[in-house]
């Protein structure tokens, strides 16, 4: 029994080591990649008010330049929350959302309206089309 606190301290120390090595190290390395300056590009196709690809999260690093090219099969008004970007799409014409990911967080990309402005409606009870996750460095 006497060894128990010591053992637990060792366990804690090991956990701490894993924690620090797994988490802080990438933060040190990744700015090297960021300097390449290439925009991160993503293509998103919306059919029947849903994103067709399996990808429902776009993940980038803070500081990246991001380009999301969106195409929908009907008129749509899209909104990237947090960054507050609006994009109005005509049917089957690609539109681009471009921004520098300078705020870390998880931001929903939502359709505020599908269909024509006159009769179009906001889809009730529907979840965002996808999320943009900006990971901190």
């Amino acid at each position, binding site marked *: *029994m006497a060894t*128990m606190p010591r053992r637990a301290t060792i366990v804690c120390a090991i956990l701490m080591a894993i924690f620090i090595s797994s988490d802080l190290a990438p933060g040190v390395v990744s700015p090297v990649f960021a300097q390449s300056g290439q925009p991160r590009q993503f293509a998103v196709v919306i059919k029947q008010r849903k994103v067709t690809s399996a990808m429902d999260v776009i993940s980038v690093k803070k500081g990246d330049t991001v380009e999301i090219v969106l195409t929908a099969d009907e008129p749509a008004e899209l909104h990237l929350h947090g960054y507050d970007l609006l994009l109005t799409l005509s049917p089957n014409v690609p539109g681009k959302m471009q921004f520098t990911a300078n705020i870390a*967080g998880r931001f929903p990309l939502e359709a505020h309206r599908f269909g024509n402005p006159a009769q179009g409606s906001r889809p009730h*009870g529907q979840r965002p089309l996808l999320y943009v996750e900006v*990971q*901190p460095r």
Partner: protein
Amino acid sequence: MSSRILSLCLALAALAGEALVATQALAHGFGQRYDLPIPLSFYIFGAGATVALSFVIAAIFLRNAHLPETYPQLALLCSPGSRRWARRVAIAVSALAAGHFVLMIAAGLLGAQTPLRNIIVVSVWIIGWVAISLCSALIGNVWSVLNPWATFFAAAEQVYASARPNHSMSLGVSYPSGLDVWPALFLFLVFAWMELVWGGRDVPARLAEAMLFYSAITWLGMFVFGRKIWCQRAELFTTVFGIFARFAPLTSAESGEKGAILRFPAVGLLEGDHRTSWSMMLLVIALLATVTFDGILETPLWAHVDTAIIDSPDDSFLWTVFGFSEAAALRFGRTIGLVMFVMLFSAAYLLTCKVMAVAGGKRYEAADLARRFVFTLLPISIAYHIAHYFSYLFNGGQLIIPLLSDPFGFGWDLLGTATYRPRIDFVGPLWQWYVAVGAIVVGHVIAVYVAHVRSLSVFRERREALRSQAPIVSLMIGYTMLSLWILSQPIVETNPGG
């Protein structure tokens, strides 16, 4: 019993349907959080530290550690002059809070009906619920000064007393002792439902009406039974913030010479009457359950529940018997979930107490232990509350800055801050992760410690006390893991819309 629960569910479902008619789809939902889930490394560290530290504390107690008889305290406001000064500040703060209360209701009824342009929505949910509950737990019982219902009633009492000396304004009916804090428990469940499910929660006029309705109940209760007793037993915010404040480092002194006492956090949980009433026990459990359920609602797990509800076949009872719209069905699901979650928490806790009673040598009844140990779980709940709301409080709470200049949404600029745009990265993900996991681990350690100390005072024999710890510490580990798991889940917006 089950029929009573069923009828409660049906009543709540009916309310949900009714609330729905009045709401409308909003482009910018209130209460949006942009938090990233905690990464795997934080999750593993938190989980590992939780288990390891539980063993460390157990080992320390096994090795015959001496319990401190008393904990160090620091008396504050010891001179009459400083107490007089503190009282003046308290009166000023009470008056400000009362003024803000009137402003909220006026804005709710008369102002713009957009949640982010009307001061009432931010004031109720971010300031009134999140900020005050965290201040209660981490500073002291601030509600005793802020409580606008008590302030107005006390002011009315003063006026009455000056007009008719030696007469009491309230009827002075004696509060039935069997009623205990059951009214507060009932009102808290209604409040939790409003916070988590109700469609009117971000509609200013609905909120103002709800506040007026609650004011009527509160003032009537104070009039019939007296202000103090009604606050202690039935005013849900006094009781709930009072529960949080038991953990707080600051407390007002009971008697004469000292004004306030600074103590270690959580030692307040070890003081006073060791056996709480049934209603108080259930109120604490309900508090723990609803705080956690709030997090569950944003996980992909609940998103699956929502999807299942929406995708249920056309001949499902949801549409045929109840005639729900999609959003009403989603609210119905949440209402059932909330009730089930409170019952699940209660069952898990009572079962643990049963095992504790057996492990502790059967000298105590499980029911008796349940009433003695319930407050030991509170630190974990407070920790989760911090983890869940830390970034939201500072990022979302900034909304109050422009709203103070334009509370009605009429385009005013009273303080010159109307154009302030909140910085949504004021608290970034790294800070949020460290604070969240740090709070969870520290909260767990405090809970395990408090449970050990409590067991040594409850059980007569040391060995029984230590044996009784395995079940409750297991429950605590499970509860903490649940908190960590929720934090590791990406937030999925599941607001049922209009």
